[in-house]
């Protein structure tokens, strides 16, 4: 866990402590479990986004993909009586295919990632709405897929804590992503391509493949998240379902240390970023803050957190420079660069 992750963790703990102090119900098992459930769902697609951000791209269609694939998933199992395992596989395949298309357009056709995924945002949303004729897709009353429901939206009691399965899913995804990013050759290539694509090519890395893979991973994970979210809401209004989620994902990734210039970011950071965003949502409701202020509170806390982090870093740098004369202060311009 690096310093950046640590200060994010501290921020989360501080916010949590403040909330608990004002309303101790924050720590109720039920509340924590609900929040954890949200973290599970949002964390998975935030990790998906992080993969693309690390290679220096961006994925804006997350929310629309969640809507489109969610609608299709429900439609498959409810209206077409497809076996849910088959449907599950089909949806994941759909996500991977979307990623493949995005990656190919970016690398082979040389279109800016922002443009490609913005078009994706528009097209998938439109497709979802057209497909359902703007009607809400849902399970209806009594429709029941006990295994699927238990697997995706259920909770298992672990030492008295009802652990949502979405958290288990996030844990598995994060663990694999962590190994992949921080320990495998492929991860190394992701960072290399993100930082300096030309140099990566000079080093014999097939950067196009790396970029495409990142989009494919992103697509697959987003599809997985889409299923979890569909099973949580059990109803999808195609016009609004998942909208703005790309901003959540990007915010979580950026809070967690990803730079939009590519080449930076850690999985732990992204998960912590998601936790912070969800705790903030929870806080607004628990403290009875007018919901109109929900967004404002979120924005303010993030800003204060980032400012505090920056302030502490500058102080730390100043003191170490005094204490250890050999230490480098020249890192300042570099960190500036990182900060951008």
């Amino acid at each position: 866990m690096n310093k950046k992750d640590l200060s994010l963790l501290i921020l989360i703990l501080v916010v949590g402590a403040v909330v608990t102090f004002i309303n101790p119900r924050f720590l109720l098992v039920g509340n924590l479990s609900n929040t954890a459930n949200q973290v599970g769902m949002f964390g998975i697609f935030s990790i998906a986004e992080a993969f693309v951000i690390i290679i220096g791209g961006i994925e804006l269609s997350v929310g629309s993909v969640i809507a489109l694939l969610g609608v299709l998933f429900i439609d498959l199992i409810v209206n077409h009586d497809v076996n849910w395992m088959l449907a599950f596989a089909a949806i994941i395949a759909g996500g991977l295919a979307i990623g493949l298309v995005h990656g190919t357009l970016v690398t082979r056709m040389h279109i800016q990632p922002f443009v490609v995924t913005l078009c994706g945002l528009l097209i998938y949303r439109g497709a979802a709405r057209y497909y359902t004729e703007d009607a809400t897709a849902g399970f209806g009353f009594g429709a029941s897929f006990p295994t699927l429901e238990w697997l995706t939206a259920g909770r298992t009691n672990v030492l008295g804590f009802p652990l949502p399965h979405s958290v288990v899913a996030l844990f598995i995804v994060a663990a694999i992503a962590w190994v992949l990013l921080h320990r495998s050759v492929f991860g190394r290539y992701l960072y290399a391509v993100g930082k300096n694509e030309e140099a990566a090519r000079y080093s014999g890395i097939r950067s196009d493949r790396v970029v495409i893979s990142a989009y494919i991973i992103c697509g697959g994970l987003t599809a997985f998240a889409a299923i979890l979210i569909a099973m949580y809401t059990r109803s999808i209004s195609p016009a609004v379902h998942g909208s703005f989620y790309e901003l959540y994902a990007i915010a979580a990734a950026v809070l967690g240390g990803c730079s939009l210039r590519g080449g930076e970011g850690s999985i732990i950071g992204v998960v912590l970023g998601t936790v912070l965003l969800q705790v903030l949502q929870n806080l607004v409701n628990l403290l009875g803050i007018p919901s109109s202020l929900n967004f404002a509170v979120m924005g303010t806390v993030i800003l204060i957190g980032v400012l505090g982090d920056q302030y502490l870093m500058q102080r730390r740098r100043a003191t170490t420079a005094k204490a250890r004369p050999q230490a480098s202060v020249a890192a300042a311009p570099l960190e500036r660069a990182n900060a951008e």
Partner: protein
Amino acid sequence: NAADKKVLAFVVNGASDFWKIAEAGVKKAQGELPNFELQFKYPEQAAAAVQQRVMDDLVAAGAAGIMVSAVDPKNQTEQLNKVASQTVLFTTDSDAPASKRVAYIGSSNTDLGKEAGKLMLKALPSGGKCVGFVGLPGADNARERIEGVKETIKGSKVELVDVRGDEIDQTRAKRNVEDILAAMPDVSCLVGFYSYNTPRIYEVLKEAGKLGKIQIIGFDEDPITLGGVKEGSIAGTVVQQPFEWGYQGMKLMAAYIGGDKSGIPANGIIIVPGKVIDKANVDDFMASMKAMLKK
């Protein structure tokens, strides 16, 4: 001590002026219910998941009763049941009849649509083409209103040829009206299904100098809509009575929690009928609105 009071919450499906009136009703109820703390909650987005989250958090915070206008009642049934199992649940605005809610208080959107249909027939005695404007054409309230309209005008010479959606973006809403005027020179009546649609129609027609030449039928009680009705350029508007939902709903809920279940009918449905406002009764209505919203 506020913390000791029982919390009753009114959770709406999205921010709009319409709910301001309900909020006024809730406020009035608060004045009569000193032992309760009444909260009025807007989810930050009109999405089922977001609303669900608000309710989950309210339950976690220990709310004694929740009255909700579910975003998607059909599919939210199970989650509503989850809420109902932990607290007293009322529904309003759009019912979830299959759920374990204690009662529904509100109006029927289909009925409101039918009223609007009648207004259209009256405004276009010799028939004509109509276009509707709405925020989210897929949302239940929109669908039911449109259905109601269509049911009423079926067989007549009045036709609803298209309904344009705008994602609740006012710029788009106004733009849609402009574009329809350009695309269909022969349109003879415009229907605003959401509260803000009617004022946008009014403005565009006013700017185009077509007030009076093209009929306007509206829903809800936006001040501009009422002004237009009063002026005679809007044929009429169909309003609900959210003030009553808020006021009566909260009082009923408090009574229910206090053990008095006499106010709840057997089927649990309490319909507060809508009203048609036209030139004849607009002044009275505006006066009573003013009185309601006075703080």
